[in-house]
């Protein structure tokens, strides 16, 4: 079983969070069909796989992380939670800086540092979502 955490926290202004990976459906399509994928998230997020577990408490998320083979996430709380459980995974980066917000124990996939938002410490509401800032699924799948 692998876990996916596709969406970072919703923005107050209603726009798409610029940290949300743009090609989840394509990436999921490329993952070996024999692998069970569990999506975690909250109410209102798009369901991408059959097994979508919403609004899990932290204690259940920790157990799920212990049980998984690995995980794939955007830059969100989940990468920190999995890191705290000692379970390495893949983080799909775009505009936030993995050197600041990431953990070297993970596989941090950043297309280019040129795409990083100049000020990393403001609300993400001020940064536009840009699909071109992410690695394409064909490249990501090589790391899974």
């Amino acid at each position, binding site marked *: 079983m692998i876990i996916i955490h596709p969406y970072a926290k919703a923005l107050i202004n209603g726009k798409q969070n610029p940290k949300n990976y743009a090609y989840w459906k394509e990436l999921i399509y490329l993952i070996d069909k024999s692998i069970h994928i569990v999506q975690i998230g909250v109410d209102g997020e798009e369901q991408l796989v059959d097994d979508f577990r919403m609004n899990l408490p932290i204690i259940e998320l920790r157990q799920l992380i212990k049980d998984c083979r690995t995980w794939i996430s955007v830059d969100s709380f989940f990468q920190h939670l999995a890191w705290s459980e000692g379970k390495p995974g893949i983080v799909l980066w775009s505009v936030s800086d993995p050197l*600041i917000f990431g953990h070297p124990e993970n596989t941090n996939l950043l297309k280019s540092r040129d795409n990083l938002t100049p000020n990393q*410490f403001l609300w993400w509401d001020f940064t536009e979502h840009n699909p071109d800032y992410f690695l394409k699924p064909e490249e990501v799948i090589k790391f899974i």
Partner: protein
Amino acid sequence: MNKVLCSVATRGRYFTTLPLVLQAIINQTTLPDKLVIFDDNDEPKDMRNEMIYQYFFQMLDIKGVKWEWLFAEKKGQHHIHQQANRMGYDWVWRCDDDCIPEPNVLQNLKSYATEIDNVGAVGGAILTPPNLFDTSNVTGKINNICSEPNIQWNHIEKIKEVDHLHCSFLYRAGVHDYNLGLSRVAHREETLFTYGLYQNGYKILAAPHAESLHMKNPEGGIRSETRKEMYEHDEAIFNNIVGLSDRTIVVLNCGLGDHIVFNSILSDIPNPVVFGCYPDVIPCRSIAEAQALFGNIDQYNIYGKMDQWKWTGSLQDAFRKLYL
């Protein structure tokens, strides 16, 4: 020693003690790189039209001291000092508008700050004629603040490490914030500020040969508010902070992921008391309680701090810098 900003907050003293203070600053044997006057008057005037002030500005120009006259926001001098604190200078020498420094004050304060390691703030005697208190047994400890006079209230014979200073002193800028939760009277603002520097691991020094004369003027003044509840509000914040002097106050007004990362360094923090948003990650008291106890919690904003520090390291190390 790097750049020094001299900051003067003034209210209601255009033609009483403020000119004396400005003259004394201009006559320092070591001059600041810049003088900023924060005008917090209820009805501010353009002092460039006053001859005596024209003379001051001309003298500053001749001596090569940059100067600026800023109109403050009328929120109290803690807001003014915080503005000075963040103006990009390495040190700030804050002078009250009724406290007249002897000509050698800045020179000697700078030398202490330069020659002694890890100084956060250094201040000399603040003498208020005709009162001279017996300070021979003063400890300068924060917990004794209500039971002993301030060490600055008499001549200081030798350098002494203390927990806090008041009134006028030279401090390392940009490493600790003023508590902006205090009322406009900003009661104990400088005590809280210097004590915060002390808690951050810097030395706070009471130093000899740097004396100022505090001409307590009953008219005007940056604290010229009479509302008792403002003093009570500020005193409560002061007591809440000092009451936790043996604890490391941690305020996590940030996201879930930030709490998780902070949790990894929690065991390194001495005797922490944590206020946060996610008790299922870290046992904590609420952010609302922190706000009520401490007045303002901006100084604990990890994102604000990383922005201020132009941070390029990890979030975990930023928390270490803030709390260890």
